[in-house]
């Protein structure tokens, strides 16, 4: 996972003719993390979508090295297939192996549900499955949008442990959350209403 990087250089974000933020600068290298905070509607999710390349910045440049994995409010897991197969599809696209699926499921304590269809999962379990998909993806750059939403205490601890392990192996975490998420030594990007 060496050489992963994410850098924003005076980035501005315009959504629906409304300026959400401008002049945003930050840089993340291997092992770094940043926590995006701010009130609702200030552009936290848009910042993550910019970082993922799903939105184009209105001004400024975004530099990204290495593969990325995005966890937003959509689990993007096919509802009618089993959890293992749904995550396996994405792992296959990422060029991973079956053991990666098991590793992701184990990290979020979902191994016992791996043969259950995704539509039978509860909201919290689906959130954990979304995070398991990110962990199984083996991408150096994690973009997590409100990863703690709907998680119980034990799952939150598992998420924190996964993020620590990910950073120790040279990965990057960019998370938008109202909770600290145990990201020790993380930059804080506070967005304020423009």
């Amino acid at each position: 996972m060496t050489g992963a990087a994410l850098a924003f250089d005076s980035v501005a974000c315009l959504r629906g003719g409304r300026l959400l933020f401008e002049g945003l600068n930050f840089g993340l290298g291997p092992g770094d993390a940043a926590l995006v905070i701010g009130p609702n509607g200030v552009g936290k999710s848009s910042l993550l979508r910019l970082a993922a390349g799903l939105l184009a910045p209105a001004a400024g440049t975004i530099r990204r090295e290495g593969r990325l994995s995005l966890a937003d409010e959509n689990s993007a897991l096919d509802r009618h297939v089993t959890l293992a197969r749904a995550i396996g599809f994405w792992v296959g696209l990422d060029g991973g192996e079956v053991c990666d699926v098991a590793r992701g499921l184990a990290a979020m304590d979902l191994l016992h549900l791996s043969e259950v269809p995704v539509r039978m999962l509860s909201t919290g379990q689906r959130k954990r499955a979304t995070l398991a998909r990110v962990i199984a993806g083996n991408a150096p750059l994690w973009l997590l949008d409100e990863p703690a939403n709907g998680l119980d205490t034990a799952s939150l601890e598992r998420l924190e442990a996964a993020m620590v392990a990910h950073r120790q192996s040279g990965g990057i975490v960019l998370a938008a959350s109202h909770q600290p998420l145990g990201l020790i030594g993380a930059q804080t990007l506070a967005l304020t209403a423009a």
Partner: protein
Amino acid sequence: MNAFLLLVRRDLALGYRAGGALLPIAFFLLVATLFPFAIGPDAKLLARTGGGVLWVAALLAALLPVDRLIAPDRDAGVLDQIATRGISDEIVALARIVAHWLSFGPPLMIAAIPAAALLRLEGATLARLEAGLAIGTPGLAALGLMVSALTAGLRGAGALAGLLMLPLAVPVLIFGAGSLTDESGSGLKLLAAASLLLVAIAPFAAAAAIRAGRE
């Protein structure tokens, strides 16, 4: 290329699960069964008009799943996830065209055999119908996907899709039905041209629509 095959396989599995091959076949055969009731049992009239009716039925069968080719995956974040993996929207659109065609093109060609018997079509007409369907249905699949991408996320997308798609399918219909009585084969060539044009522009048009929907 491996990613392309994975996408096609997933889309095809989804298509078959949602009624895939059976629904177009049932629809197609239903039209072929109903038409003689409406026209009457005049074998000559049926044989003369039957091929054209089957072309209209094929066009409508291609339209059946248009509302679920793009919109559900767009809403579930699947298209975003694919995009973050560096796979272009054009590849996604092309994979969906292939999967959509596989889920109704070959099944329709099989269903055309009993349908031709119901409508008293001659062997030569059936052969030309099969050739025309083989050439024309990829164009219909491409058109269906393009319209599906354009209408994804709109209210009443299903009805709007029909209004958008049917006029654009007129060239395929004219040349497809026209080739049934045409001995020279030029009808099939024009059908191939119309179909090829649709297949060539659809991935780019659909990808542009998917990108525009992301803003």
